[in-house]
């Protein structure tokens, strides 16, 4: 089943490269993926902990390296996010991008990203977990470099070198982790490693965890390794930005939750204060940087960097509330940022620019875009009714449950206060940006522009609808990730 | 192989090898190379590697040499003009070659096992048969791959020889 999920986009991408009708094939493949994922979600037995739908093919038995896929609640949630965002990205692609060059390669690249991310989320083998992510990175580079806007080559190089370095550091960390194990128990299988960790059989070397943290952190744009993100998202074509910011970036967080934390909880504890400092940078510093932005796309790029800080806070807190909140926020943030990038792309396609000074009053000629952008912006700043709110709420509580002594706040609580203030910051920049682009007096230049075409609207409605489902019934998603969170927390923390 | 034959063929091989690199006329170099390879093939026979020796003659003395001569003729290369000898380069090259040879001699001297005589070998060795068995039993895949390599090489040659390289 999972193999099919990975194979469909791959096959579709190859078919497109061989000359199949690009749009229809891509749309069909992603729709099929979404149906399959939904089927998996409903088939998944929540009562049973552990990985389900597993299948494996042993490749190098001497190294215990195998093609091994399987899912638990967390990966299912991520797969669901992937297939929803993928469908929406492919769906809006013709509307937000005037494709003049190599349309087939364009759609094939998008599908390769989808296949890579799906594979990374479904893999239970460290090697494939890593390799699938790399598979997804290459087409991102192509998408930005070939179809981007602005300084597309600069942005493409930047993201490539940054992410390649991040992946390299990550690879060093993973190999160091593998080699630090006693010879007899070395394995690439994540479930086996987790069992080993439960028995305390994994050496908790702090620097290995630091390497993993920096490696994953660069992929997630952890402060101060974040500057690739805004320029890349500003230059990337909207569907690529949706897939990368919405899904691919979550790979790093997923990796922390799936590999780094369960395997090395004590080493993680060693670096808690460092992580708190960095994520405070993400929230406060990047938040302020976001306010200073003068373009809608870089503002969205920085805002997505900023919101990573909240997820990190949940992860750093390392308790049920924090981890669950982090998982939910990964899902909700992916949807909301994807919707925002899609809509910003549509605006750019219509107005030719995303500079605030050249926009204004767009909600009048573009009511649907204006309305949905407003909803997505509200979601992004964590208002109730959308999935981000029930995700951020437990994160705040998780930070505060690391109690200090009365009014002498613990570090967690201080960062929690900063994170709360970050909510104010995010509403400042988001509302300023929304006002500058959509509200106010309509510019006379908007005379002839048309709203998003009716056939594309369902893609946006899909994203926002799922966000609202997550906002109204967050318990559904909490139940999904509960067993995983329990597993992560089962390892001895100190 | 009797020592006398060995030394004769070795001297032949080395002498004509030296002639290859010393001749100023490329045609003479190529012909010296043929003789050098013939000597080498004789050494192969002396080592009971009959099949390899035959191949050596066929491929090198036959095909490769013809190719060399053909190209030399095609390009109509004359003997090199005497140029100013680049003394430092010459000295450097000779120094390195001498150093390499000295190292080699030292290593071989210290290799005691190499001074034992060769062990006896099955008389009337079915050499080609054994090679064939090994090749197709143990080295089947590399054999196929080498076939592809030759195909690619011949295509490459065709492409490279086109008059206009695009």
């Amino acid at each position: 089943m999972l193999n099919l999920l990975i194979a469909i986009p791959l096959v579709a991408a190859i078919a497109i490269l061989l000359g199949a009708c690009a749009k229809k094939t891509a749309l069909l493949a992603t729709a099929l993926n979404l149906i399959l994922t939904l089927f998996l979600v409903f088939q998944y037995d929540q009562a049973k902990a552990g990985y389900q739908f597993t299948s494996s093919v042993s490749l190098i038995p001497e190294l215990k390296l195998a093609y091994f896929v399987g899912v638990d609640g967390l990966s299912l949630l991520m797969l669901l996010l992937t297939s929803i965002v993928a469908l929406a990205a492919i769906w809006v692609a013709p509307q937000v991008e005037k494709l003049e060059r190599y349309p087939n390669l364009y759609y094939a690249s998008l599908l390769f990203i989808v296949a890579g991310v799906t594979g990374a989320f479904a893999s239970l083998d460290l090697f494939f977990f890593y390799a699938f992510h790399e598979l997804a990175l290459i087409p991102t580079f192509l998408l930005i470099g070939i179809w981007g806007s602005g300084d597309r080559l600069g942005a493409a190089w930047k993201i490539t070198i940054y992410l390649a370095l991040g992946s390299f550091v990550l690879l060093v960390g993973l190999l160091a982790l593998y080699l630090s194990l006693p010879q007899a128990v070395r394995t690439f299988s994540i479930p086996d490693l987790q069992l080993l960790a439960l028995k305390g059989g994994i050496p908790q070397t702090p620097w290995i965890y630091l390497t993993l943290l920096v490696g994953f952190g660069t992929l997630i744009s952890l402060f101060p390794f974040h500057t690739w993100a805004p320029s890349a998202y500003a230059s990337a074509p909207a569907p690529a930005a949706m897939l990368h910011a919405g899904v691919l970036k979550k790979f790093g967080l997923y990796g922390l939750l799936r590999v780094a934390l369960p395997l090395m909880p004590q080493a993680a504890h060693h670096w808690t204060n460092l992580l708190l400092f960095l994520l405070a940078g993400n929230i406060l510093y990047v938040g302020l940087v976001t306010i200073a932005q003068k373009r809608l796309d870089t503002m969205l790029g920085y805002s997505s960097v900023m919101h990573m800080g909240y997820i990190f806070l949940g992860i750093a807190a390392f308790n049920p509330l924090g981890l669950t909140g982090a998982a939910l926020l990964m899902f909700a943030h992916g949807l909301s940022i994807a919707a925002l990038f899609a809509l910003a792309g549509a605006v750019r396609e219509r107005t030719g620019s995303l500079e605030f000074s050249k926009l204004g009053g767009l909600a009048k000629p573009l009511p649907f875009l204006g309305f949905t952008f407003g909803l997505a912006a509200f979601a992004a700043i964590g208002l109730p009714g959308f999935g981000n709110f029930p995700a951020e709420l437990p994160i705040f509580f998780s930070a505060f449950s690391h109690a200090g002594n009365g009014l002498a706040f613990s570090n967690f609580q201080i960062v929690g206060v900063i994170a709360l203030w970050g909510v104010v910051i995010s509403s400042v920049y988001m509302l300023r940006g929304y006002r500058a682009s959509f509200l106010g007096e309509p510019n006379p230049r908007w005379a002839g522009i048309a709203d998003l075409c009716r056939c594309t609207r369902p893609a946006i409605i899909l994203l926002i609808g799922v966000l609202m489902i997550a906002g109204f019934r967050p318990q559904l998603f909490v139940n999904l990730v509960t067993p995983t969170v329990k597993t992560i927390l089962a390892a001895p923390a100190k | 192989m009797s020592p006398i034959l060995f030394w004769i063929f070795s001297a032949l091989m080395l002498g004509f090898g030296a002639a290859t690199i010393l001749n100023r006329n490329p045609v003479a170099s190529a012909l010296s190379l043929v003789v050098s390879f013939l000597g080498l093939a004789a050494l192969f026979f002396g080592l009971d590697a009959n099949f390899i020796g035959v191949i050596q003659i066929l491929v090198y003395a036959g095909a490769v040499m013809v190719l060399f001569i053909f190209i030399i003729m095609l390009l109509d290369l004359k003997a090199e003009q005497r140029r100013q000898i680049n003394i430092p380069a010459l000295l450097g090259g000779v120094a390195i070659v001498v150093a390499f040879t000295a190292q080699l001699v030292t290593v071989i001297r210290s290799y005691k096992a190499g001074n034992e005589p060769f062990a006896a070998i099955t008389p009337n060795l079915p050499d080609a048969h054994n090679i064939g068995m090994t090749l197709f039993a143990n080295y089947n895949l590399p054999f196929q791959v080498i076939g592809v390599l030759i195909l690619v090489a011949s295509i490459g040659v065709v492409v490279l020889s086109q008059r206009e390289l695009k």
Partner: protein
Amino acid sequence: MPLPWIILFAPLLSAALIILFTQRYKNLSALISIAAVLVSLAASVGVFLAPEMQPATAQLPWLDFSSLGVNFRIPIGFTLDGMSKAMLIVVTAIGALIHIYSWGYMADDEGKSRYFAGLSLFMFSMLGIVFANNFLMMFIFWELVGVSSYILIGHWFYRKAPSFAANKAFICNRIGDFGFMLGILLVWVATKSVDFETIKTTLPTLTANPAFLPFATVAVVCIFCGTIGKSAQFPLHVWLPDAMEGPTPVSALIHAATMVAAGVYMLARVYFIVETSAAAMEVIAVIGTITALGAALMATQQNDIKRVLAYSTLSQLGYMVMAVGVASPNGAMFHLFTHAFFKALLFLGAGSVIMACHHEQDIWRMGGLWKKQPITLITFLAGTLALMGIYGFSGFYSKDAILIAASEHHPVLYYCGLAAAFLTAFYMTRLFVVVFFGKARTEAAGHAHEVSIVMWLPLVLLAIPAVVAGYPEIIHRFLPTPAHEHSMVPYIASGMGLAGILFGVVLYWGRAKDPIYIPLLANKFYFDEIYALIVWNTQDLLARISGFVDRWIIDTAIVRCLASGTYGAGFILRFLQFGNLQLYALLFGGGVVALFYFILFFK
């Protein structure tokens, strides 16, 4: 289905229906919205008349972490006590009248569907706050109120001012919410619960420990920040006057029954926590007093009819907050109850004046309306007198309740309250005289005529409770009122009121322009300018510095330097590529020889 569910979800359903289906049919949208609020009203009356309190057990689990072994549950539950029942009636009744009034006021607005969807959402959010039985449910709806106010204030988003006003309102609220959430978190840290009932039971064991007191003070002040934001108390009051950029019925809704009342309602709801810290209550009382007096001062010099009313709202909210601070939450709720009616009445009356004068809001461009709008005149008068606290009108009873409590607490607060009462009477007289009497000062005011029945009927219906809502016989059915002991306070307060009226009439009767001009007050103590300066010099400055650091230090100085360093190294190293094949081969050979040397001979 139990009635509370109907009350709460009918407006949400209507908002959803309008957004999803009937956006193109404006009148249908309006009808759906009005029907929904009427259903809520009927159900509220049903709940109110139900003989015994329904147990608040019907809960919808929204978020529950008990399966993870954490006691963190956020249900959507219902509180049904006297306070919430009274609020239900107020919110739904005034809401219903405003919905009906809007039918007329927004008759030919092109965004009517959006407007009514926003109103319904607003009702839903406010009712959620009223029902909340735990902090987080309250916070959820608290935020939703912010959202719906953003939508409604920015209804005319294609104009510059409303879009800015909406942003300002929302961000001010968010700053308050920052404190509110922090307060909730602190309470949770102390009691491990967000449920009001649970907190109530665990709190006494905590307060026994004197070390808990500073913690409680901080927590209460933080919670009070929520009120500061939502009820527009000093120093976050600046958004409320700007919110007048929204349609007038929205102003009525925000000011009378819903948004700003939420802050006071919340304080009264969690009064059992507030009273644990006397220091925090002092803070509350002082902030309330500052707001009451300061806003009244600012109101005296405003020329926009809606802004005068807005500042009067601020001032009255200051009274309520002060009441909580002087340990009289019942007084606060009492004033909230009466104020809701007469303030709604005043805003709707102002709306019909504005409508009659063709959307003119400057009081100096009106005048002489008494002949043309008799119904508006009478109802407006009733509202004005109630606001001034004249004997016989509802405001009298509730304001006196607060002043009595203040006089028992501290004389300064009491005197400030009296001064505010005097100023209230003064500026309301100014408003009333300038708008309704004298000569019509513009063309539009000259041609004004009475508004349609859809609009004046709500005025009349609101005028009745504006007069009678304060009578002890009526109020005690709704709310517990403070015991009315014999005191001199009502007489003094009434005297101040009458003095204010007299002063106002003398000063403004027959004037065509303002005889006094105090720049400090007309410019609202320069708060907007000061804040703009502060924001510009702190947050925006920091933002620009961070932006600079990110762009030039991290991205250029560090990242690009690494990149160009690599490039430069390559640039230098490429001079080693001298193109001589044989020299390469020589070096290669030398390397091999050296390698052999080191491997084999260098021991």
